[in-house]
Structures are given as C-alpha cells and as structure tokens.
C-alpha cells in the first residue's frame, strides 16, 4: 500500500517544481495569477493559466497542495480567486526533488561555470 501511495505521488516534473516553489513563495496569496506573475518574474516564462491550473489540479489530486476560495475581487467575472497552499507531502516531495538536483550538481558548479565561460 505504501508503495502504491508513493507511486501515486511520484516524481515531480520540472514545471511542477516551479509551480510548487511559486506557491511557497506567495504564501497565503498563491492564486493562479500570482503564480503566473512569480513564474514570469523569476524565470522570464509567460505561462498560460490553462497550464497552471492543469498542473495545480494534478498536484491537488496527488495530495501535494490544497485549495481554498478567497473573497471576490473586481475584474474576474465576479468569481472569487482560488488560493493554494502546500501540504506536508507536497513540501516533502519538493524538498526531495530539490535535494536530488543539488546532489547531482554537487561539486560541479565550478566546472559548469568554467564550461559556460568557454
């Protein structure tokens, strides 16, 4: 059962990690538009709301984030924004993914910088 649970959570993709970090950065203000802005500011990528919500929906289904409805604001067709926050399992998965990347990069950054400088 534990294996199945683990399999269901699975590995995080590169974009999923980016979305989770954005949620983390925004704290209680992690709405779709907020995540869109963080991704643009931090990575320069303009991502469509469709991609963000599809990813958030998937993460929610895997139990890594949860959502709540906020107060209605103007200019959203009268619809209140949805705010997301990391669940403990989401935090664990994100941390593991980050550590994995760090382990892979450990001791290689100087070499990488050297190569990049040509």
């Amino acid at each position, binding site marked *: 059962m534990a294996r199945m649970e683990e399999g269901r959570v699975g590995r995080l993709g590169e974009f999923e990690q980016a979305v989770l970090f954005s949620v983390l950065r925004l704290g209680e203000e992690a*709405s*779709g*538009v907020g995540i*869109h802005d963080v991704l643009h500011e931090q990575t320069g990528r303009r991502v*469509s*709301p*469709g*991609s*963000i*919500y*599809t990813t*958030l*929906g*998937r993460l929610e289904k895997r139990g890594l984030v949860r959502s709540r409805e906020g107060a209605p604001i*103007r*200019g*959203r*067709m009268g*619809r209140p*924004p*949805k705010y997301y926050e990391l669940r403990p399992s989401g935090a664990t998965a994100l941390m593991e993914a980050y550590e994995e990347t760090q382990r892979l990069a450990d001791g290689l950054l100087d070499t990488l910088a050297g190569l990049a400088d040509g």
Partner: protein
Amino acid sequence: MNVHKSRPPTWLRRLAWLLIRGPDALEILADLEQLALREVVQGGSRWRASVRYFRNTLASALVVGWARLSETRWFQTSTVDWKLAGRVLLRYPGLTVVAGTAIAFAVLVGATNLEVFMDTAFPRIPLDEGHRLVEVRIQDRGQARVVPPTVHDFVAWRDADVGSLQDLGAYRSTRRNLILEDGRSRALLGAAMTAVAFRTARVPPLMGRGLDEADERLQAAPVVVLGYDVWRSFFESDPDVVGRTVRIGTDISTVIGVMPEGFGWPRAHDLWVPLRLDPLGVDAAASPPVSVVARLAPGVSLRQARAEFTAMGQRASTLLPESREFRSPEVARFGEIPVPIPRLQLVGAMVFGGVGTFAVVMLVAWGNVTLLLFARTAARRRELVVRSALGASRERIVGQLFTEALVLGGGATAVGLWATRTATNWYARVGSEIMEDMAGVHEPYWGFWFGGGLSWVTIGSAVLLTVIAASLAAVLPSMGTAGRDILSRLQKVHGGDSSSGWTAVIVLQIAITVAVAPLAVAAGIGAVRTADLDYGFRASEYVTAELAMDGEFYSLVEDLHRESRGTPGEDYLRAVDEIERRLMEDPRVRSVTRAWKIPGDVHPQWWLEVDGGGAPPPSPRGHRAQVTAVDASFFRSLDVGMVEGRGFAVTDADASENVVVVNPEFVRRVLGDRNPIGRRIAFVGADGRGPWREIVGVAEQIGMTPPTLELPGGEAGIYLPFRRAETYPVQIVVRVGPEADRFASRLPALVHEVDPGLQVNRVQTLDESTATNARVFGLTGRFLGVFAAVALLLALAGLFSVMSLAVTRRTREIGVRVALGAGRWRVTRTVFRRAVEQVAMGVGLGALLVGVLVGVLFNSDVQVRPDAGHALGLAIYLLLMPGVCLLACIVPLRRALRVEPTEALREDG
C-alpha cells in the same frame, strides 16, 4: 476606468468560453480576464492585451483539452491497444514481414502510378507562386488540336498589353553544344528565352546575373547563363566562371551567370541564351513557333485570363478571317499536358485512374493481409476468450483488431510512401537518362518539378485507403455475428461459407502470380536477347554516332503532331562530307560508312508486295520486313559479303534507280527460297502501293533489330540505297579496330572541329547499340519479377495460414479418426482438399489470363509468335506452379500426419 471597455472584445471572450472546458474552466477564464484587464489598467493598449488574451486562450485550450483527453477511458484503453498491437507485431515476425511487404509493395505500385499521373496532369511548380504560372497556346479548332503560338502571335499579345497576364515572355528549346577550350564538349538542352520569360521564374542567380533586355538586341554580344549541374561537372565549380568565354554551338559566348541547384526553368534546361526576335523580318505566315509563358496578374483568375484571350482571338479572327478562323489563343496552367482535355476530365481520370488503381492494388494486397490477420486472430482465440471472459465487449475486441491492423498498415504504408518517393525520383532521373540516350529531338516530357516530394493527394489517398482497409480487416471477420459470436466465428475460419471470401482471395493471388511471372520472364529474356544480338560481324571494332543539326528543338506541343525529323540542309550535308573525309585521313580509321538505321537499332517494319508471288504471306495484308537505308560502302565496310548478285553502287542512290538488296532470311520467308535476283517488290503504305523496286543482291545475314520480341517479319530485311539529300539524321559507322573504345571518346572533338554546331549523339561502339533497349527491358523485367515474387509470397502465406489453421482446428478430429482406424493419409486428404482445389482454380485462372495475353499479343501489331519452345516452357511452368503453391502446405501437412490420437484428445478435452 470603465472595466467593460478595458476588457477584451466580447467575441474573443465568447471564443474563450467555447474553447476552454473542464472543471477548472471558470478559474482559467477568470484569470485570463484578470490578466488582460490588469495590463490595460497598468497603461498597456487594449489591442496588445487582447492579443495576449487570445494567445493565452489558445494555449490554455490546448493544455486543458489534452489533459482531459488523456484522462478519458477511451484514451487509456487505446493506449493499451496501441502497445498491445506493437507487441503482437513483434510476436508474429513472419506474418508482420509478409503482410508488411505486401502492403508496402501495394502502396509503392499504387502511389507511384498516382504520383506520376499527378506530376503529369497537375504539376506543382516549385517556384514562387508556381501555381500562377501559365502557358499561352493556340487551340486549332480546324484540326482539333493544340499548336504552339508563333513569334508573330507573341509580339501581338505582348504589344496588346493584356491586363490579365504579366511577365509575358517567350522561349524556344534548343539543343546546343557546349565546347570548352580543351576540346571537351557536351550537347545540352538550352532555352533561348526573352529576359522577361527568364525573370518569370523569380529565381535569382547563384552567381553573376540572369538574362537582360539588352542581351536580346540583335547586335548584342552572345551571352549564356549556365545551370548548376553544368557548372559543377563541366566547369569543376569554377568560382571565376562568370566572364569566361565558351563556345555554344557556333557562337563564342560569355558566361554571365550560374543558376542555383535544381533550377531547370522552364522544363529541364541546362543553359539559357537570349531569344533574339526580329518580328519585322518575319511575315505572319512564316513566323516561327515559340512557347509563351507568363504569370497571372495579381487578383486575376485563370478563368478571367482565358476569357480575355478568347475575346482577343475572336477579334483577330474577325480581322483576319483566312488565317485565324480556327485558331484561338488558350491560357493553360504551366506544365499541364498539351492536349485539349478539360480539367474536369483530368480530375475524373485522377479519381478513377489514379486513386481507383491505387484502391484496386490495395484491395488485392489487403484482401490477403486480412486473411493472414484473420488466421492469426483465430490462432489467438484463447487470448481473446480470456479477454471476453474478463468483460471485454465485442466492440473492444474489434477495436483492438482494428488497432493491430492499423499499426501494421500504418508502418507498411509509411515504408511504401518512402519507397514511392525514392521510386519517383529514380524514375525522373533514369527516365531522363534513357531519353538522353535515345537522343530525342523534342523537349523532355518531364520538367524539373518531377520527383521531389509526394503530392498531398497521394499521401491522403494512401492514409485514407489504409484506414479503410484496416477497418475492413478488423470488421469483416465479425460481420453478421452478434455479441461474443465473434469467437465462434473465428473457429469457423476454415469451414463452410465463411471461407469462400478467402478462397477467392487466394485463387486471385495465385492467378496473378501465374499470369505475371511469364511476363517478367519474357521481359528478362527480352533484355538478355536484346543485349545478345548476333551482329554477324565484329561490332566491337566500329564506332557509331548520330550526327544531327544544332538548333531548335521542337516544343512538346509541336512534337505531338510531328512524324518526320525533317530533311538535312546544305550546310549539314557539307559538314558530314567533310567529317567523313577527315575521318578517312586518320591513320586509325579503316573505313567510314553511313546508314539510316544501324544494326542494333529498332528498324521499322514495312508491309510489302512481291511481284510474281513468293511464300504464302502470314497475314492477308501481305509480308513485312525490316527496312534500313545504307551507303554504297556499307557492306564492304562491315565485311559483309554478297551471297548473290551485287551490293550497292554509288549511282544506285539516284532517284531514278529503284533497287534494293535483301538478306537470306528475306529470300527464305518472303520469296520462299526462289531466285531473288531480278524479282521486284513494292512497299505498301497508307497511300497505297509505292514504286516497284528490283532486287539486285542478297547480302549475308547480319543483325538488324534486336530479337527482343518475335517480329512478324522475323529477320527478313531489306536494304535501300542511302539517299544523302533525303536521309536525316545520319548515323556514321567508323571502322577503327580493337581501339574503337578509345577512339569513340575522341569523335565529338573531331566533329566539332569541322562544325561546332553539329550534334554528336549516341557515340558508342557498335556492340553497345542495344544497351538502351536492353536496359529498358531489364528494368521492366525486374519490376515484374518483384511483382510476381510478392504475389507468390502472399499466395503461399495465405495458403500456409489457412492450412495451419485448419490443422490446428481439426487436430482433435484427426486424432479421433486415426484412433478409429482411419488411415492418416486419408484423413489429411480431407483436410487438404480445399487447398488443392484453391491451387487448381488459381493456376487454371492464371493459365487463362496467360492465354488471353498471348492471344492479344498474337493479334496485335507486335505479334509475339510463341514457338514450340515457348509453349513447352509455359506448359512446364503451369505444371510446376501447383507444386510450388502446395509447398506452403508441407509444414501443416507434416503436423497433421504427426497427430497422435491420445495427445490430440487430451489437448482439447
């Protein structure tokens, strides 16, 4: 700020609502709107915000749509089916290879046929706005044919300033010798064209410049633009070629540019020179023909251009009723075949001829593939039973079978289309080489647009036919059954009504194999026999070449209506005389002679009448014999002695002398071995009987037409005296000796020293004169051989599948019968009776097809007369074929004979 005015337009928002669906749709739409609104609030333009909104909408719709699709049950089960289909293909490699080969070959045959048709009937010109290029021709209503316009017509249209066309230019195809300082020369297809016609292609030169109006002036210095291949191969890619002077025929021309690779405008031309028109110097009646090309003016349709030219033609016929009454200008898409066929008929021909043939070929191949798939499905009954027991519906099982057929068919079709692409490119290349070898005087029939990529019609037809065939292959086995009856249906594959369809498929396959194989063998034998012509003298010691006048080609339009290649001019005759004289001065040359057709050429066969009777004629029209015209020195030069009478004297060529020389085969076949000398013959043509000609000699038998096919007149031959002023083009035959090969490469330079404008075609040693024909037959034979092999492979695979299946299904029955005391052979005979019947029917039908084919050929002009050897060969072949077909039954038969009653009963019990 007014929120309503800052939002994206309503229609855009409605579109977003329409496209984005799903549980998060409202969140997404709200975010889209919030982002757009914020951009405007922060000072951005509404337009830019709307564009971003639109882009985000499309991207969101795609992502959400894909996510939703991938979550559907259909998608997930389809994915399983695709994976399963891949595994099944790998699990049955034999079947995959056989069925895949059959489909790929069917696609190759059908798609190549369609592609060649498309290239011919609906050419896609790979130039900027190539579909707007047009050709202006003349419709001659009096003779119901298309003829080329004249210079006079062209100038009239150009000066009339027609509004529907722009870039109206003219060209004539020419064949010119390109001669370098070091004596190397090559005859190339050139276009003498106006600067406007050159620019119509809209292709900038790779180097230098293209043709210019200044080059067209009569006093301008001769210039030439070279094609890429000529520059690469002839000038070794010289980067400084621009400015070099070269000899183009009799002109010393300056190279002004090189065109990029693949450029062959307007057809398959290698060099371009200015067309210098002198309209004032030519009256309307004697105006030479040209080809006229143009582009449709912006916004003008082909129909409008046609209307304008039709109106212009009507005005001209009113003004000049005598000459123009039946001539009306016609605008056609560039590259379309120059015959007056309405476009609708062409489309009909494409659908019925091209796509229809494709469908028939696919039907035959897929019929067999369906049989193989069906047999395999029946063998997998246990797997399907399990799936069915686990709750798989009939639709699911059919869906899985469809996916399997589609994976197999899709892969094979992709391979077939790739092969088609290779084949069409190869066809274009080899075709042009063969045409070059044959040294035709017309433009190439194909243009630079032939080959290349496949048309969408071809690709679409292949995909559509594959999907339809895969659907039928999946659905047919279960048709007429309900629910899970598909499984019981699979059990009945070999019994009763359900196998009648497969019987037809197998019978047809065997019949095709039986009928095609002899054709392949005949073509192969033709190739061998062509190459093995018995010359009757040392042909390798002679060098031959065709000498033609440099000058203008006849355009494709003209060539369709031409019968003769013209008569030689004074300059030409003088030049040939001088070449002969110089050749004779060369110490390596032993003799020089001339002929109309040389040994190894296909000689025309003429009907003739014999004065005083001879052998009974094989046809009511009389006898036929091969004919050529040879110089007085011909027999002496070839060391051919006279059996009776005399050879030709120089005076025999006078028009008043009507004498001929015949060969011994003529004496035997036509004269019935009666004394030939002094007898008279006359040729019989469409205009009736010609003058009587007296036989003055019988020359030893030497090779004439290669014995590729049995000619009606056999080897009977007649030699006419060579009349220099009438015979064109001349073939010279130079006796050199063992070094003929080396001498051949020097001959063009020697000819060009005398006349740089003279074309030297087909320079070869005489024993190579059959090479081109042998190549054509060899290629045909190989193609038919592969075709027959694939048909045989399919037939054998079909028989094998059905027999294996029958044995598997009836193992228990065989076991019971053997246990009850029936002999093994007797039992298996009942199992294999159907296979024997199918083979017998197939071979019988095939033999009937062969008979029909032989009958058609026997009655046609070619007249293949099967002799006893042919008949015997065919009989042995037809007797052997059943044995070959039944080879497919050996393995199942052995299995049936080894059935042990105890095991068989245990297995199924």
